[in-house]
């Protein structure tokens, strides 16, 4: 008899039964676990030497110290620097993911002229020509996102060499002019719309002192700061009538119940300060200028022109850094015909959408940068922000662009070295090194190159205090006109200039 169908079935059945007694099916089963544990498509972290490197955050004027944990040269997490004079050991929610910014898409990587890629030299040539053609009533303006830096000096020098140069900066960048706030000794803050707990100064410093002061929040919206304040007065922040009512109440008169509450709290918790555009002359009444717990003057302040003060339609050439202000404000000031706008920005969103020329700038952590005095600091300050990752090819720092425009052969790095040399020469102040939390007097640092090396390794220079005079009020922060996108100024700025959007808040 030949091989029948029945034999085949018997053979198959027998083999199947026998196979169960061999290791084969069990090994295959176990191997399936390896497949599921090494699921295709899921990236594995790169291994490498773990290093700690230091830099300073440039995303907002708070100038927080940054400790980066790096695998090889790539930062994998950022943290604050314990003991940092301006920021304490904290970073904000955006600062904690600064190292993710290069991967967010929407980067400007090539110089653009009307949307088409060109060489930077071409842009330089065309912008120079535009500047040369400016008439007596046509100004050239630079909008400096972060005034007070060595780069800011570069911008001012360039504009000083022109007939009609205007140097502008957003008021929020130096909200109190030459003054800082002695937050450590303040006992009450009357805030007119300032997001004290949600993006004011450095979060580490504010929150370290939170238990020392009473917070009165005057604003129409139930913002995060309002919801956490000791007293929330639901009045529009710019309401001059209310500020006047508070002034009356502080002097002992007036009938407004809210104002009376405010005055009571301010009276019981001294020293007190008033901040925000609506503060008016309250700080004079509170006598908070030049006193501990109030506004203290510092050195090294040079005022900028407030954009609101520039006549409409008078700017012929505008070079704007990042997206420091809402576009609608800038648009009003541009000349109606042939205005030239150059956006010096890392992003394709924001100003780049409106600009004639785009110069791709490096992002935070990509190139050697600097930070000026931290917002609200009572002493002048300076830090370097060393690069931790490689910048994309083709980017140019805004300061380098302006130097080229000025036909200056110096590089931005040289400018920074000059700044450090000047610090050493002045011999004032102390340097706080991030790695060991020690402070050294500048006089005790041997040479300029030592100071440079120290700052490059992550450090903050802090000036000595200056004698105070009890006159004058701080310049109040001007209302920008547009309602902020978010109470956090940094989030507003990021949303303006990039494609990043914060997640909507949900109940669950």
């Amino acid at each position, binding site marked *: 008899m030949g091989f029948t169908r029945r034999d085949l079935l018997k053979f198959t059945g027998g083999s199947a039964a026998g196979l169960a007694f061999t290791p084969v099916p069990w090994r295959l*089963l176990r191997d399936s676990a390896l497949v*599921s544990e090494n699921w295709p498509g899921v990236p594995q972290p790169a291994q490498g030497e773990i290093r700690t490197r230091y830099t300073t955050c440039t995303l907002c004027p708070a100038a927080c110290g940054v400790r980066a944990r790096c695998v090889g040269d790539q930062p994998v997490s950022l943290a604050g620097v314990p003991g940092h004079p301006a920021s304490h050991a904290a970073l904000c929610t955006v600062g904690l993911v600064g190292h993710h910014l290069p991967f967010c898409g929407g980067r400007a990587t090539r110089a653009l002229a009307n949307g088409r890629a060109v060489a930077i030299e071409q842009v330089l040539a065309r912008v120079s020509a535009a500047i040369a053609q400016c008439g007596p009533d046509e100004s050239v303006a630079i909008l400096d996102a972060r005034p007070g830096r060595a780069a800011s000096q570069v911008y001012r020098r360039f504009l000083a060499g022109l007939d009609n140069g205007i140097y502008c900066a957003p008021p929020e960048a130096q909200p109190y002019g030459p003054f800082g706030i002695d937050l450590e000794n303040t006992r009450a803050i009357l805030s007119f719309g300032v997001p004290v707990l949600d993006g004011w100064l450095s979060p580490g410093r504010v929150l370290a002192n939170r238990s020392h002061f009473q917070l009165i929040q005057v604003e129409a919206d139930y913002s995060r700061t309002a919801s956490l304040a000791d007293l929330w007065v639901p009045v529009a922040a710019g309401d001059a009538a209310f500020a006047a009512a508070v002034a009356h109440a502080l002097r002992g008169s007036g009938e407004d119940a809210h104002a009376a509450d405010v005055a009571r709290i301010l009276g019981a918790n001294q020293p007190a300060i008033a901040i925000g555009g609506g503060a008016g002359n309250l700080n004079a009444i509170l006598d908070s200028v030049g006193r501990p717990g109030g506004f203290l003057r510092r050195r090294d302040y040079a005022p900028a022109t407030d954009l609101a003060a520039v006549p409409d339609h008078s700017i012929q050439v505008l070079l704007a850094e990042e997206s420091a202000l809402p576009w609608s404000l800038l648009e009003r000031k541009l000349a109606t015909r042939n205005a030239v706008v150059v956006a010096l920005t890392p992003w394709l969103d924001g100003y780049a959408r409106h600009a004639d020329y785009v110069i791709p700038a490096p992002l935070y952590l990509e190139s050697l940068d600097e930070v000026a005095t931290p917002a609200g600091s009572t002493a002048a300050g300076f830090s370097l922000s060393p690069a931790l990752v490689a910048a994309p090819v083709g980017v140019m720092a805004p300061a380098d662009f302006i130097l080229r425009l000025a036909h200056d052969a110096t590089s931005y790095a040289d400018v920074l070295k000059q700044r450090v040399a000047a610090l050493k020469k002045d011999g004032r102040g102390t340097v706080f090194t991030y790695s060991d939390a020690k402070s050294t007097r500048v006089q005790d640092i041997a040479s300029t190159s030592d100071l440079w090396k120290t700052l490059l390794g992550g450090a903050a220079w802090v000036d000595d205090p200056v004698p105070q005079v009890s006159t004058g009020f701080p310049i109040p922060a001007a209302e920008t006109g547009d309602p902020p996108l978010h109470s956090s100024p940094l989030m507003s700025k990021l949303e303006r200039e990039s494609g990043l959007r914060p997640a909507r808040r949900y109940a*669950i």
Partner: protein
Amino acid sequence: MDSHLMPRGVRRCPLAQFLLWILPWCALLAFGLYGAGLCLVKGLNQTNMDNRFAFGLWIFLDLTAIALGAGAFFTGFLLYILKKSELKAVINSAVVIGFICYSGAVAALLVDVGQPLRFWFTFWHPNVHSMLTEITFCITCYLTVLCIEYVPIVLKNRKLRQIPSFLVFEFELHKSMPVLAGVGTFLSFFHQGSLGGLYGVLRGRPFAFREGFAIWPSTFFLFLLSAAAAGPAFILLTTWVVSKISGKQLVRAAVLPLLGRISGVLLIPYVLLKSVDTLVWIDRTAPARGFAAHQFFIWKPFGAWMLFAEILLFGLLPALILLRRHLRQSTGWLVSAAVLVCLGVTLNRFVLTLQTLSLPTLPFDAFLTYMPSWQETATFLAVVAYGVLIYSFSFRYLTLFPEEKDLPQPVRSHETERVVMEPVC
């Protein structure tokens, strides 16, 4: 055309009509497999389950299917252990239904888990404390038992029994039926109970948590009792439905009322124990964990009416109907009561799966809602279609109702094909 495959002595509709019947179910199966395939390939984001509704439609339907499929083990227990010989009329159908319910549930579970390749981890690293380990083992074993019980039904097919080795195999298997029934009952006892224990042990969900006896919460016993009560009712219902669709008399007049009475007899202690359990829970268990019971019922539409509906409308009412002989004799009352029982079991499983997850536990949480996605619904419909197809083929080619050939059947004009008698060789 295929009459030589059909059981002797019964009439079935023409092949063309049968194909017309199964075609839409095949289409539904294909559509459902597509939905399930999407879930397997793209991941469970294809469903509307989320971190709050970790269990959704599938788990709810799995629990319901297994409770209704309990008729398989319970009928076997009554027939082979308690010797209630009238149930021979429906035991085959019950086994097929059980097989469908359990295999469908297992298939749905394989789609439900995030990593189906790791299904064997429970056997390799079992957790003796977990109800789900117990369920996994028991259901796997019981499905094996059901397959073994299904095999003789298949082997008794007119064509297959012509193969001598199959005949002998089937005969030997039949001798061990009582043992298999006993094993099945034992396994079923545990997994039906453990399915109740699944929620009863959740100390973090005071809505579902119950105290009990040793390691078993009261829901262990309540689920078991409700499954035992619902099983016969579901067998009753399906027999009636199949009888109506096929237009045949499938069982003697006494069988369905018997099933109804068994259901009714089991429902009474169930309703009693459930009521006691609910009162204990309202009075002691939930408040001891910081949750006043009334808080659970303030959310529309899950008000207290659901509790009353489950126990009274779908529990006590059908029990009272089924215990009255003259109502049992009336098909209308009998079937309606059976429907109520099955709905009651379904509602009970719903309350403990989906309502539990919708209720807030954290003090600052909210009440949440969930609606299954089309992929989830399609997968469920695939299981239904699969069940209908298996049953349809079994009904056509296998003897699911041994009494059918002895009962007078209404004559249908299209079934005038003669069944050719073949000699047994």
